C-alpha cells in the first residue's frame, strides 16, 4: 500500500511539475501580451474536444483525448479571430461567446457519452476539475511530449517572440511574420491547456496560465528571468496542490492548485522588492519622514531663482512630482511658519505657492549652510 501511494505520488508530482512549467512559460507571454483570458477560452473550449477524443478512441485514452482537446481549442481560436476581425464585436465578446458555446457543446457531449456508456465512463467528469490521483504513468508520456514541443518552440523562437511581445509594430516593420507568430503562440497556449486537463481541469486551467506569470512579473525586470521564475512558481503550485489533493481524497486537484498559485501571486504583489505594494508603501513613508520642510522650501527657492522672480508661483503638483510624495503637510507647515503663502494662478489650475520675504531669507541661509557642509555639488 505504501509502495502504491509512493508510485501515485511520483506520478502526481511529475505531472504537476510538467503542467506548472509549460503554463508558467507560456503564461508569462500571455500576461505580458494582455491575452491572459485567451487561456480561459481555450480551456473551456477544450471540453468538447475531450469528449470527441473519448468517442473516437472508445476509452479514456490520454493521447486521443489530448488530440481532441487541441483540435477544438484551435477551432475556438479561429472562431474568435474570425469574430473580432470580420465584425464589430470586440475581443471580450468574442472570447466570452466562444468560451461559453464551447463549454455548452462540451456539456452536451459529456452527457451524451455518460447516458450511453453508463457509469464506467464517469472518469470524464474529472476533466472538469482535475483529479491528480488518477494520473497514471501512461498519462505522463503525452504530457512530456507536449511540454517538450512547447519548450523547444519557445527556445527556437525566443528572439522573435520577445520582439513581438514588447513591440509588435517594430516587429512587423522588421519583416517578422507577426500574424504567424501570434497564431503559433496561441497554439502553444492551447498545448499548455491540454497538458493541464488531467490534473487541473478545464474550468480552472486559466488560473494556471495567469497566476505564475503575474507573480513572476512582480519580481523580474527581464523576460528571461520572468519566464524562468514563472515556470518555477507554476511547478511549485502544481506540485504542492497535487500532493495536497492526492493525500486528502475528496479534494479536487484543480481548486487546490489554483488557490496555491493565487496565493503566490498575491504574496508577490505584496512583497516583491521593487514592484511590491508593501515595499513601495514603506519607501513612500520613509521618503516622507526623511524629507524635511527645509528641503521643500529649498525647492521653491531654487525654482524662484531659476525664474529670476522671488515671488514665482510654483504649482503644488510640480513640487509633489519632484519629491515623489504628497507635500501638502510640509507646505502647510511652512505656511504656518510664515515662510510661504498660497497663491492664486489661473482659476482652474491646481494650488500654487510662493515664498514670502522671510521665506526667501530663510531659504538662502539654508542653501548657504548646505553648501558649506556638502560643497557645491549638493
Amino acid at each position, binding site marked *: 500500500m505504501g509502495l502504491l501511494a509512493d508510485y501515485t505520488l511520483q506520478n502526481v508530482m511529475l505531472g504537476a511539475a510538467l503542467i506548472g512549467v509549460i503554463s508558467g512559460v507560456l503564461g508569462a507571454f500571455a500576461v505580458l501580451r494582455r491575452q491572459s483570458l485567451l487561456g480561459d477560452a481555450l480551456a473551456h473550449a477544450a471540453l468538447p474536444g475531450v469528449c470527441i477524443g473519448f468517442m473516437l478512441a472508445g476509452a479514456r485514452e490520454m493521447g486521443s483525448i489530448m488530440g481532441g482537446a487541441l483540435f477544438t481549442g484551435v477551432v475556438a481560436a479561429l472562431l474568435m479571430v474570425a469574430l473580432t476581425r470580420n*465584425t464589430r464585436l470586440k475581443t471580450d465578446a468574442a472570447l466570452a461567446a466562444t468560451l*461559453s458555446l464551447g463549454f455548452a457543446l462540451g*456539456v452536451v457531449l459529456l452527457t451524451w457519452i455518460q447516458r450511453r456508456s453508463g457509469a464506467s465512463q464517469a472518469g470524464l467528469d474529472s476533466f472538469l476539475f482535475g483529479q491528480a490521483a488518477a494520473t497514471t504513468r501512461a498519462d505522463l508520456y503525452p504530457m512530456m511530449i507536449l511540454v517538450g514541443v512547447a519548450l523547444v518552440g519557445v527556445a527556437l523562437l525566443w528572439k522573435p517572440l520577445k520582439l513581438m511581445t514588447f513591440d509588435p509594430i517594430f516587429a512587423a516593420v522588421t519583416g517578422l511574420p507577426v500574424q504567424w507568430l501570434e497564431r503559433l503562440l496561441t497554439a502553444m497556449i492551447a498545448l499548455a491547456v491540454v497538458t493541464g486537463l488531467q490534473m487541473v481541469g478545464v474550468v480552472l486551467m486559466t*488560473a494556471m496560465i495567469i497566476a505564475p506569470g503575474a507573480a513572476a512579473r512582480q519580481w523580474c525586470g527581464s523576460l528571461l528571468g520572468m519566464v524562468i521564475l514563472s515556470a518555477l512558481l507554476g511547478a511549485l503550485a502544481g506540485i504542492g496542490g497535487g500532493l495536497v489533493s492526492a493525500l486528502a481524497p475528496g479534494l*479536487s486537484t484543480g481548486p487546490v492548485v489554483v*488557490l496555491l498559485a493565487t496565493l503566490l501571486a498575491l504574496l508577490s504583489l505584496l512583497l516583491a522588492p521593487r514592484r511590491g505594494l508593501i515595499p513601495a508603501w514603506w519607501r513612500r513613508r520613509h521618503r516622507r519622514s526623511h524629507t524635511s520642510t527645509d528641503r521643500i522650501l529649498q525647492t521653491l527657492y531654487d525654482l524662484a531663482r531659476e525664474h529670476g522672480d522671488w515671488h514665482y508661483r510654483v504649482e503644488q503638483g510640480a513640487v509633489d512630482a519632484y519629491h515623489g510624495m504628497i507635500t501638502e503637510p510640509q507646505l502647510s507647515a511652512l505656511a504656518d511658519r510664515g515662510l510661504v503663502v498660497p497663491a492664486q494662478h489661473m482659476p482652474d489650475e491646481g494650488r500654487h505657492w510662493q515664498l514670502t520675504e522671510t521665506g526667501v531669507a530663510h531659504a538662502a541661509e539654508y542653501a548657504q549652510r548646505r553648501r558649506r557642509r556638502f560643497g557645491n555639488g549638493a
Partner: protein
Amino acid sequence: MSGLADPTIAILLTGMLVGMSASLLGSFLVLRGNSMLADAISHSILFGIALAWLLTGQTSGPVQIVGAALSGVLAVYLIETLTRTRRLRDDAAIGLVFPALFSAGVILINVFARDVHLDEHTVLLGEIGFVWLDTLVLGGIEVPRAMLAMAVMLMLDAAFVLAFYKALKLATFDPDLARALGLAPGLIFYVHLSLLSGTAVAAFDAVGVVLFITFVVVPPATAYLLTRRLPSMILLAMALAAASAPLGYALAVWLDVSIGGAMALATGPFLLLAYAWRRWRAGRQKRSTQPVQSPSAPA
C-alpha cells in the same frame, strides 16, 4: 400535475426566463466591452452559494440570492482594486480573481457538503430537468420554485433597466459625459452587476453558472451584429434567448443530453447565422462599390 407544474412547461418557461433576463442585462455588458465580467461573476458566485449554504443551510431562496450576489460584486470590487494597484492589467486581474473565488467555493463544497444536494457539478451545469419537482403553492396555483425566482429576477431587472434607461444608456456609451452630468456611472455599473449576479444565482438551478454566461453574451452579441439601435438590440437579444430555450429542449429530448447545455448551445447557430449574413452583406457591398478589383494583394 398540470399547468405551470407540468414538467415540460416548467422547464421551457424557466429556460426562457433565464435567457431573457440574462440577455437583457448582458446587452449593456457586451456594449461596454466588459463581457468577461459575466464570466468572472458567474464563476465567483459559487463561493457565495457555498458560503451562504454553510451559514444558513439553504440552497435557494432570497437570502441565498442576495448572499451569492454579494460575492459577484466582491469579485468585481477585487478586480478593480487589483487593477488600480497598476501592478496588473485588467485581463490578468479578472483571471486571477474569479478562479480563486471559484476554487474556494469548490473546496468548501468538497469539505463540508459532501453528501448534500449541493455539489459542484450541479452548480456548474445545473439540472433544469428537476425544476418541476420543487414547487410551492401561490394563490392556489402550484408554481416551481426556480421559475418563480427567475420571474422575480426578470421583473427586477426589467424595472431597473426601464427606470434608469437613459442613465444606463449614457453610462454605457459615454461614461465621461455621464459622470460630468452627475449620473454616477460607477454606481449604476455596480447596481447593474449586482442584478446580474442575483440573476446568475437564481439561474444556477436551471442552467448552472457556466452556461449562464452563454445567455448573457451570445444573444446580445448576435443582436449587435444585426441592428444598430439599442432598444431593438435588447428586444432582439431577448427574443433570440427565449427562442433558444424550446430549440435546446427539443434537441435535449431528441438526443437525451443535458437540457441546460442544449439550451445554451442553441444560442450558437443564431450567432453563426448572423455572422454569415454580415459577411455576405459585406461581400456584396464591396462588389457593388468597388467594380475595379483593388490592386493590392489580399492580406
